[in-house]
C-alpha cells in the first residue's frame, strides 16, 4: 500500500488451533483507533496467530504494535487462568 510504507508481522504460537481462533475473534472485534493511519489484519493459521500491521510512519507502527501486544498478553493470560 502506497500510503502505508511501514509494515510488521507478528507470528504467535498458541499450541492449539482452537485457542488461536479464540484469540483471533477476541482481538478482531475492536478496530484500531487510528484507522486512517494504520491497517491491521489478523488471521489464525492452524495453531498460530498471524497479525500484520501497516502504518504511515514508523512511530505509528511502533505504537500500534505495542498496544496490540498488551491486548494479546491479556487474552493469553485469560486463557492461562481459565482455559
Amino acid at each position, binding site marked *: 500500500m502506497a500510503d502505508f510504507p511501514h509494515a510488521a508481522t507478528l507470528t504467535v504460537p498458541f499450541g492449539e488451533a482452537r485457542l488461536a481462533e*479464540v*484469540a483471533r*475473534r*477476541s*482481538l*478482531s*472485534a*475492536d*478496530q484500531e*483507533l487510528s484507522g486512517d493511519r494504520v491497517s491491521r489484519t489478523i488471521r489464525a493459521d492452524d495453531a498460530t496467530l498471524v497479525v500484520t500491521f501497516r502504518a504511515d510512519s514508523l512511530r505509528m507502527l511502533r505504537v500500534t504494535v505495542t498496544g496490540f501486544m*498488551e*491486548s494479546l*498478553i*491479556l*487474552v493469553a*493470560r*485469560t*486463557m492461562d*487462568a*481459565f*482455559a
Partner: protein
Amino acid sequence: MGGGEPRTIIALGLEGSANKLGVGIVKHVYADGVPPSAELRPEVVELANVRDTYNPPPGEGFLPRDVAAHHRETIMPLLKQALAEAGLAPRDLDCICYTKGPGMGAPLQAVALVARTLAQLWDLPLVGVNHCVGHIEMGRAITGADNPIVLYVSGGNTQVIAYSQQTYRIFGETLDSAIGNCLDRFARVLKLPNDPSPGYNIEQYAKRGTKYIELPYTVKGMDVSLGGILTFVERLAKTEPEKHTPEDLCYSLQETMFAMLVEITERAMAHVGSQEVLIVGGVGCNLRLQEMMAQMAAERGGKVFATDMRYCIDNGIMIAQAGALAFARGFATPIEDSWVTQRFRTDQVHVDWRT
C-alpha cells in the same frame, strides 16, 4: 403470567468503563417462566459483587492508559474472587455481560477482551450492556422503585431520565462537564486525597462549611451547565485562598450544583407526573444530594430512592443485572459485534424487558 417452565439465569457482569473494575454475579429466578409480554420481574439474588478501584495520588486525575493497566492487572484475581464468593464454576453461568460503553476507550477494551475470551472458552453467550442502563436497572432492583424519574450522576454522566415506550429517555443533562468530574477536579485543586474517592472527601469538607459563597447558577430549560461554576470556584480557591476556607468552598459548590439538579429533576417529575426519584451513579452516594432531593420530593408528596456505595459506585453486578434482563428476552452480542464504544447514549437501548 404463570404456566411456564421455571427458569433461572445466572449472569456474570464485568465493568471497567472508568477507574473501578467490578465483577458481579446475579441470579434471576422466574418461578413461572419468562413471561412473553409482561414486564420482567424476576426474583433477584446477589451472588457476588467485588470491586477494585484505581486511585491516582492526590492532585492527579486518572488517565485511560493507567486505568487500563490497572484493569488488566487486577481482573484475573477479581474474577476468581467473584466465582469463589458465589461458590460457582464457569459451567454454572448462563451468560457473560460486559460494558459496551459509554466510558474510557482503553479500559473498556481491556475488560471486553477478557469477556470475549471467557465467552468463547466457556462456550457462553456474550451480552453487551449500556453502562447507564446498568445503573438504572440495579437501582430499580435494589430500591423497588417502580417507574421513577432517574437522576444519573457520576464522573462521566449527568442526566435526568424518564422511562417511556421501552426507552430510557433523557429529559435533561449537562451541557458541558459531568457533575462528578467537576467535584473530582475541584478536589484536585484542593489536593484532597483520591481515596476512597475525591467526591467523598469533598462531601466531608462540605459538612464543615458554614458560609455560603454565591456561585453562578446555570439552569437552561431542562439542562444544566456546570463548567462555569467549576472555573469560578477554582479561581476563588487559587487567587483568594485567604478569603475562603476549603470547607466553605466545598459546601457552596455542592449546594449550588445540587440545587440545579434538584430543579431539573423536579421539572421532569412535573412533566411526567411521577412521584418517585431514583438517584444512581457515583455522586448518588452523596448524602447531602439525597437529602436535598428528598426535601423536594416530600414537598410534592413523593419519595426518593437511593442506593449505597456497593451499587451506586460503578460495579459488576449492575452490568449482570441489566444484561440478564436483556438475555431473558433473547438478546446476545455476537463476538464480531462486541466492539466497545466511548459514546453510547442511554436512549439508544431498546428496553424490551419492560412494557
